[in-house]
């Protein structure tokens, strides 16, 4: 029996009693801290608290990247003093001002997202420990640095499931502390809310890392596999002749039992299993090595949830957690689709049949006596969902609810439209529905068809239509043909980037010869077309950037084909390499994207990772050209993922809708005092170009996002070759999408070798004529002019303490 580390109790006069204590609150962390003392070099901030990163790192970031506050509304409705009018930065009755309140609002988004991933991690960790035991090793593929986010944050290097527990406990503790600050009369300074948000972002990547590594280790997901198999994707891939079991959400726990049941009963080719959102990605990863190619299908992103239900195809829907629509039960009921809630986080008010007899539950659901049920026992879930899908299929077929509406019905709906324009006003994507209806009345349905790709399936149009036209169904019916052809390919999520890949690309990234890492992540609330992510990915892949993706972004990248009928996943290799496209995995796999940048700092930069966030982040900000794109970010989790990237010095571009997060982090490119760092060799200040110009901002169109991201990959320490490669791409992309030379290109030039080779002479002339720089034309050299000096061995840092003289 292990020794008791905390607490006290006394027992008298007991005989033959065995006491088993599974866990003592706080003990795991204390034991871990004890163990950590024996470990190698440790940075200054293991197990940080709310204040730990504030002065040494967060405020440095927030000084350059100032919080840009764009309130959602002018009021605060938090407490019973109010509602208070905060317009023009007024203070409310409790004393908080508009800035502080909005800082709180954004912060609340971030901690909500963090909690989602952490809670998901806790659920999986407990579940998998129960089945596989604490000693299951974390076999994640070819990596020494298994858990970069956990290691940087806590100083721990867990090797087994059980050893993850301290990090899990720690995240939960800090989240409680963070949540407390939202209460009225707590934190009121905007800047401190932003510092806390950044801290929460770092915790989010720990929670995500835990979620993904435990499932990779225990459920045999691909282990850092660049050759992860291709998976069929899209509504068009579902075989309508088979019973269709449709799963929605983020937590793969329950789905594995359905897959096991299907295998045991030889049903894998008799029942269609497909999903939406991250559960879909993860079910294609389950026991992947034994199953290639996976038989499970990915229907698509969250935007397809209502669309797939309205299509009538699913015979049973199983939901777990996160990104699951709130109206699935009433929508499904209209088409006699039973809904099973399999996770205590979403129970939909349904009766709990966890302890009921399986046969009785199936009968109840089949008869329609109940619209759905909560089933939290995974063994039962596996059996009921698969059996029920088979039984519902003929019943629903006979009831005629497995097909979308008839042509006559469509015509009747279209004819009802009164052209009032209410739907246009309500549609978040601002789709011109009235115009499309007008053409449809004349028999031209192509306008309606065109709406399908951009429509996020939110139903806001239907809510305001006084003629009660089911507008979403109209759009989907009119798009029947293209939907049937909606088929793509995506790689099953590969998991981490392994160390050898980092070693071979690290130098190129630090030097800038591989121009950057482009991470395409996040949800489907796109402001223009969904195809934007495809165009962006293709542009960067063709230019030899490393492109990685996760979640719905990964799916949508695979939905489109080139003129040869090939998707991006078929055209480009799956490795973390120049010109490679990796699907890292589901949303929680985002931790491996920060993880890759962190590993560059740790492995390649030789920085201590353990308990050392500021130094790792400082390295990434100054040396690793990475930029995220969350083109359709809508969820709270997207805000916490992005904020986690930001604290690690990785900028992110979001779509226009994400301005509704109420805040951005943008630097003043014209304020020279913001563009200085130290040279770690001697502690002297050195001027740097204004790059990256932002940590978090939005773009209006995908065409604008492309050059913005190329520019954001420029880093202070690029060498000449790297700088000229990065400038070449940025300037070409600017020319292509925005037109002309960017106004500020010259600010990035330190000497002639930085200039793109093909245009060097032209650009030297411009420098002379337009900016008054002195050029030695014989040697084609810049003699004077640049504000930024450069020396290849300079070591830019924002941390004075890292300087030799300090």
């Amino acid at each position, binding site marked *: 029996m292990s020794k008791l580390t905390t607490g006290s109790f006394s027992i008298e006069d007991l005989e033959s009693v065995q006491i088993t204590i599974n866990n003592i609150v706080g003990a795991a962390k204390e034991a871990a801290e004890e163990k950590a003392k024996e470990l190698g070099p440790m940075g200054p901030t293991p197990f940080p608290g709310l204040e730990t990163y504030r002065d040494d790192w967060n405020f440095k970031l927030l000084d350059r990247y*100032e919080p*840009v*506050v*764009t*309130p*959602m*509304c*002018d*009021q605060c409705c938090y407490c019973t003093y109010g509602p208070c*009018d905060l*317009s*023009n*930065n007024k203070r409310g009755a409790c004393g908080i001002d*508009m800035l502080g309140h909005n800082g709180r609002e954004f912060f609340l988004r971030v901690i909500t997202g963090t909690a989602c991933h952490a809670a998901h991690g806790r659920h999986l960790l407990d579940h998998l420990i129960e089945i596989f035991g604490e000693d299951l090793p974390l076999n994640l593929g070819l990596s020494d640095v298994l858990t970069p986010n956990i290691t940087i944050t806590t100083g721990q290097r867990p090797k087994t499931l059980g050893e993850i527990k301290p990090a899990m406990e720690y995240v939960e503790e800090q989240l409680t502390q963070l949540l407390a600050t939202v209460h009225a009369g707590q934190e009121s300074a905007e800047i401190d809310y932003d510092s806390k948000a950044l801290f929460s972002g770092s915790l989010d990547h720990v929670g995500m890392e835990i979620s993904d590594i435990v499932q990779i280790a225990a459920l045999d997901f691909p282990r850092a596999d660049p050759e992860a198999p291709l998976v069929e994707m899209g509504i068009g891939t579902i075989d309508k002749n088979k019973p269709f079991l449709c799963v929605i959400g983020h937590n793969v726990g329950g789905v594995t039992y359905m897959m096991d049941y299907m295998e045991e009963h030889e049903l894998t080719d008799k029942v269609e299993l497909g999903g939406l959102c991250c559960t879909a990605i993860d079910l294609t990863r389950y026991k992947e090595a034994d199953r290639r190619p996976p038989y499970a299908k990915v229907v698509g992103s969250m935007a397809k949830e209502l669309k797939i239900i309205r299509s009538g195809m699913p015979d049973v829907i199983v939901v777990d957690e996160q990104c699951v629509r709130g109206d699935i039960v009433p929508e499904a009921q209209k088409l006699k689709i039973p809904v099973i809630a399999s996770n205590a986080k979403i129970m939909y008010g349904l009766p709990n049949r966890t302890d009921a007899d399986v046969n009785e539950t199936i009968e109840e659901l089949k008869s329609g006596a109940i619209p759905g049920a909560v089933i939290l026992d995974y063994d039962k879930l596996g059996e009921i969902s698969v059996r029920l899908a088979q039984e519902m299929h003929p019943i629903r077929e006979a009831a005629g609810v497995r097909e979308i509406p008839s042509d006559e019905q469509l015509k009747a709906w279209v004819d009802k439209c009164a052209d009032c*324009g209410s739907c246009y*006003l*309500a549609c*978040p994507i*601002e789709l011109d529905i009235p115009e499309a209806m007008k053409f449809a009345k004349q028999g031209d349905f192509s306008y309606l068809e065109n709406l399908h790709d951009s429509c996020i399936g939110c139903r806001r149009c239907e809510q305001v239509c006084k003629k009660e036209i089911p507008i979403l169904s109209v759009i989907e019916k009119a798009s029947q043909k293209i939907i049937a052809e909606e088929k793509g390919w995506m790689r099953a999520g590969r998991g981490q980037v392994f160390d050898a890949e980092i070693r071979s690309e690290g130098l190129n990234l630090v030097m800038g010869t591989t121009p950057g890492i482009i991470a395409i992540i996040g949800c489907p609330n796109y*402001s223009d077309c969904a195809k934007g992510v495809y165009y962006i990915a293709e542009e960067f892949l063709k230019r030899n950037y490393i492109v990685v993706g996760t979640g719905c972004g990964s799916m949508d990248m695979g939905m489109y084909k080139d003129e040869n009928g090939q998707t991006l996943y078929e055209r480009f290799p799956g490795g973390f390499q120049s010109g490679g496209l990796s699907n890292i995995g589901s949303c929680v796999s985002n931790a491996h994207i920060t993880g890759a940048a962190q590993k560059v700092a740790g492995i390649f930069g030789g920085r201590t990772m353990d308990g050392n966030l500021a130094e790792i982040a400082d390295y990434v900000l100054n040396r690793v050209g990475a930029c995220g794109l969350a083109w359709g970010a809508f969820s709270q989790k997207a805000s916490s993922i992005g904020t986690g990237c930001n604290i690690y010095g990785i900028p992110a571009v979001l779509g*226009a*809708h994400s*301005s*509704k997060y*109420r805040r*951005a982090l*943008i630097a*003043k490119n*014209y*304020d020279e005092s913001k563009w200085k760092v130290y040279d770690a060799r001697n502690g002297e200040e050195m001027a740097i170009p204004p790059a990256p*110009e*932002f940590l978090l*901002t*939005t*773009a*209006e*169109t995908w*065409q*604008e996002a492309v050059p*913005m991201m190329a520019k954001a990959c420029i880093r202070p320490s690029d060498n000449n070759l790297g700088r000229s490669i990065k400038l070449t791409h940025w300037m070409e992309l600017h020319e292509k*999408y*925005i*037109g*002309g030379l*960017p*106004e500020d290109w010259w600010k990035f030039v330190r000497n002639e070798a930085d200039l793109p080779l093909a245009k060097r002479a032209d650009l030297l002339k411009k420098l002379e004529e337009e900016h008054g720089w002195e050029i030695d034309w014989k040697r084609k050299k810049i003699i004077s002019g640049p504000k930024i000096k450069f020396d290849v061995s300079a070591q830019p840092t924002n941390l004075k303490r890292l300087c030799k003289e300090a």
Partner: protein
Amino acid sequence: MVDTTKNTKLFTSYGVTSSKAVNPDMVAKIISKAKRPLLVVGSGVLKPELLDRAVKIAQKANIPIAATGHSHIGFLDKAVDAKYINLHQLGFYLTDPNWPGLDGKGNYDTIILLEFKKYYINQVLSGTKNFSKVKAISIGRDYIQNATMSFGNISREDHYAALDELINAL
């Protein structure tokens, strides 16, 4: 004359309705009175009907253009002073009295906005509304509540007509 002040239904129900509905004549007057006006156009301007009108407004009023999104590409061969800037960045810089502006001559007192997604421009303007003195006038076809003044929700045809009236009045 098009009445651009009639339909001021909000596309979203939150916040305070602070935008005053204006007609083209009034907009022309405000532009002529402004010390440092800036025409801010979004990528929606790339439709020929709108691009021509934006060019005419800039030329007749003799004001520079901040071309956001990828709208700049439309102005390359036009005789106007158009510079690219990201809208979110512009919104932030407008709240800084020390911003040298797009031409190095200082910040702007009046911005005139055309062809944005309404939710995007409205959100960016919530920053300038609360944290700056800049006057924002929306001349798009949607009523923008966080602008200082705005056209109401009007049809595409009425919008073109209203822009023509504005051009004539300049």
